[in-house]
Structure formats: structure tokens, C-alpha cells
């Protein structure tokens, strides 16, 4: 299953890649594969913007805009102008239970 075409904000700079392979280890959608000692994007539309690759790339070769994807959280943030946050996590006892 793939989500919308050409929307994922994943950006990759092969010039900075050292071929450590960490991105292929952390990506849950096999967006990266190793080719000739460097990472290579297979299909950007598979990216779900979880941010694991960007956080774990020691060489700053990957950037991706990640964040909470719950629609209700995004609607709230669109109305209030803040960052989207789920009800859950900060205060487990009173959360509304998204994600």
C-alpha cells in the first residue's frame, strides 16, 4: 500500500553518504537499499516520514519532515496554529487515545 504520490518530504544527499547502511537498518518500508557502497532511494512514495533514517544518519545525508500524523491532531493545529500533538503520551492517564 502506498500513500499520496510525490508528497513525502524525504530528501537524500548521496554526496554525504558514507555507505554505513544504518538507513537500510532502521527504515520500516525499505525505502533505502545499498548499491555500490552507497544508499539509494528505491521509491520515495513508500516513505511514511517516521524520521528514523534522518535521526540515525550520522553524516547528515538525510532530511525528512516528520511529525504526528493523526488527522484530528493536525486539524487542531490548523485551527490553533500550533504544532500537531496527539492527546496521548504527555499524560497517559487523561489521553484521548489517538495513534
Amino acid at each position, binding site marked *: 500500500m502506498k500513500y499520496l*504520490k510525490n*508528497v513525502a518530504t524525504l530528501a537524500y544527499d548521496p554526496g554525504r553518504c558514507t555507505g554505513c547502511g544504518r538507513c537500510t537498518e532502521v527504515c520500516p518500508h525499505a525505502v533505502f537499499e545499498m548499491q555500490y557502497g552507497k544508499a539509494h532511494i528505491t521509491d520515495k512514495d513508500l516513505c511514511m516520514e517516521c524520521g528514523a533514517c534522518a535521526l540515525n544518519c550520522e553524516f547528515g545525508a538525510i532530511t525528512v519532515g516528520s511529525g504526528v500524523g493523526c488527522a484530528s491532531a493536525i486539524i487542531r493545529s490548523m485551527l490553533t496554529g500550533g504544532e500537531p500533538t496527539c492527546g496521548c503520551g504527555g499524560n*497517559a492517564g*487523561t489521553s484521548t487515545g489517538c495513534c
Partner: protein
Amino acid sequence: MKKLELQPSSPETQAFRGGQKHAGVLSQNPKAVMNALSSFSHQQQPWISGVLNTACGLVPVVSTEWSSAERRGRLRSRISAFRDRYAVRPGLYAVGAPDSSSDIFVSANYKLSFDILRRSLAGMTGWILVLDTKGINVWCAAGKGTFGTAELAKRVLGLNIAGLVTHSRLILPQLGATGVNAAEVRKKTGFTVRFGPVNAKDIPAYVRAGYRATPAMRTIRFTLADRLVLTPMEVNPALRRFPLAALVILAIFGLQPSGIIFKNAWTGGWPFLVLCLTGLLAGTLVTPAFLPVIPFRSFALKGLAAGAAVIAPLVLMTPLGGASPLLDAAAIVLFPLVASYLALQFTGSTTFTTISGVKKELKFWLPVYIAGIAVSLVLIIIHKLESWGLA
């Protein structure tokens, strides 16, 4: 608080007094176990089978079995807000009789995550390091950063894990990578993070293969079962809002120039109640269940398609419609949009949608939803005016 009562010469006491290279099982004696548990003010838990004395202090040994309590807990956390308070105490736990060479598996303190991990470790030995994720599962907590670099480093240093084991491996669930920067953890603690498989059930195979995950173990899927298990938490919150919607519908249908007439409310309103409920289920149940076969990538469109596919035939071919062309049109506009809106909410539970995509969908669809409500209201008002002989 009772102290441990142990015979001076027993092997348990030897272990308890420490000074040994390998930690031993302190006791399988229920009384001693209970006393030991109360000594770290831990509520007695049936899934704790013993206690180990270790370099990190007393560590509960956990069973790899599930009792009926765990199955009940899983069910309740799948269907209700019970999951928000289904947590275990963060800290160190043992599986089997681990020693200084045993692996350390890191988990979240959502009880269901912890239960799935310990069940997956059946027949193995190891340590479980539970982070304080506020009772949230690994992936969601990683997204928020509570299953994160800082919390992991704090636990590893605070518990002096370096004194517990002679290796420097921490095995994390792969989905924890969203919150944990492996390089940072190494800098802060000296431990090397290895991201294990996505699913805990693959851990034995991962360890046997020399800490290597196959591409299949590294990929998250979203099977019919995965989706269906999530639907109660889509359906239930929506159902809780249904009485309010029902009240509005009945009030509109009961409204007469002379006031709200209950008989009219029911005789005119019941088809809309059924259609509203149908739209609700189309968005929260039908769309998730048939997700891959419903056309379109957009969740709003998927929901709209599923909604239209069930609502339109009901309105056009059953007694739920036919009362008036205006009402039929209102129903066909409104309820597929209800399904669409609810389907869009499901993006928060999927394993493959993006925040950028959801934002893009909302930017387009929120105005459509508002316009749809307005159009159907106008249609209903014209119908009311006509029926009152005012138009």
C-alpha cells in the same frame, strides 16, 4: 516491609549477598519472592516468577507465559481507553537466568508491548530494560521522543547497566529508531545500539542469525488482521458522538412551525439515523477493512468511495430513501462525507501514511466537508419549507 528471610547457607543467600560473577535466581519460594518484591515496593504481579540479585540490585524475573489476565488486558486495551493506563513499572527485568553475557532487550512500558516482548523471549535468557514511555507503545512513543535517546541513556546510566553485563550491546525494536539516535546513545553510554526486527516474534530468529534481520523482518506490513484489530478504536469513539448527531437529526425532523413534534421526529428521522450510522461504519470499519482494494490513495477519497457505495444504494433502492428527492440528495451528499472524514482519521493508525500527506488532504477536504454540510442543510431546509407549504 519485611526483610528477606533466607538460610545463611542456602544458595539463594549466596546469590543475594552478591560478589558472584553471575547472578543466580534468588528464590522460587513464593514467600521469599513476595518479600523480595515488597522490598522494592512492587505490587505483586502474577507475571513475576522470581527475583534475581544482580549488580543492579534486585531484578524481577518475568514469566514468558500469558495468563488470562494478559489476554483480558490485551482485549480491553484494543477496544477502550483502558489502554491509556495499561502500564508496567520502568526498569530492569530478567527472562530465564541471565548473566553478564546475556542480551539486553529494550522496550516500552505499555503493558501490551512488554507482554508481547516477554512472550517472544520464551526459552531464551536475557534482560529487559523497560523505558518510561508513559504507558505508550514503542512506535508512538518513539514518534513523540519518549522512547528516545535521552530516556534510554538515563536508564542505562542510572541503573549502571555497564556493571551488569560484560558486553556493550543494547537490542532495540527497529521501530524505536524514530526516537533513538544510536550514535548519540553510544557517545553518552558506551553501549552500541542494534536495531532488532520490527516484530518481537522475530527476535529468536534474529538472535540465532547473529543479530541479523532479514529484509522481511525489517519491513512493517499492514495486513487485514493488523487493520481489523485497530478498528474498535475507530468505531467506538465515533459511536460515542452518534447520540449527539442523532439528537440533531431528530430535532430537525421533528421541527414544525408549532414546535418539535416527537412523532414526526421519529417517522421522518429514522432513515437518516440509520444512514448516519451506516456512514459512520463505512468510514471506521469498511474503509480500514477493505483499504487495499478500495481505489484511490487518498484516505478522504477512499472513505468517500466506501461511503457512497453503501449510502447511495440504500437511499435509491430501499425505504431508507424515497421520502423526498431533496432529502435523498441531502443524504447522498452528507453521509459519504461523514465516511470520508472518519476514514481520514484512520491515517493516524496506519503504518504508511505521512504527516505531509494528511495535511495536504485536510487542506483540500476540510472546506469540502463544511460545504457538504451546508449544502445538505439547505436541501433539508427547502424540504421543510415545502412540507410546511411555505415554498
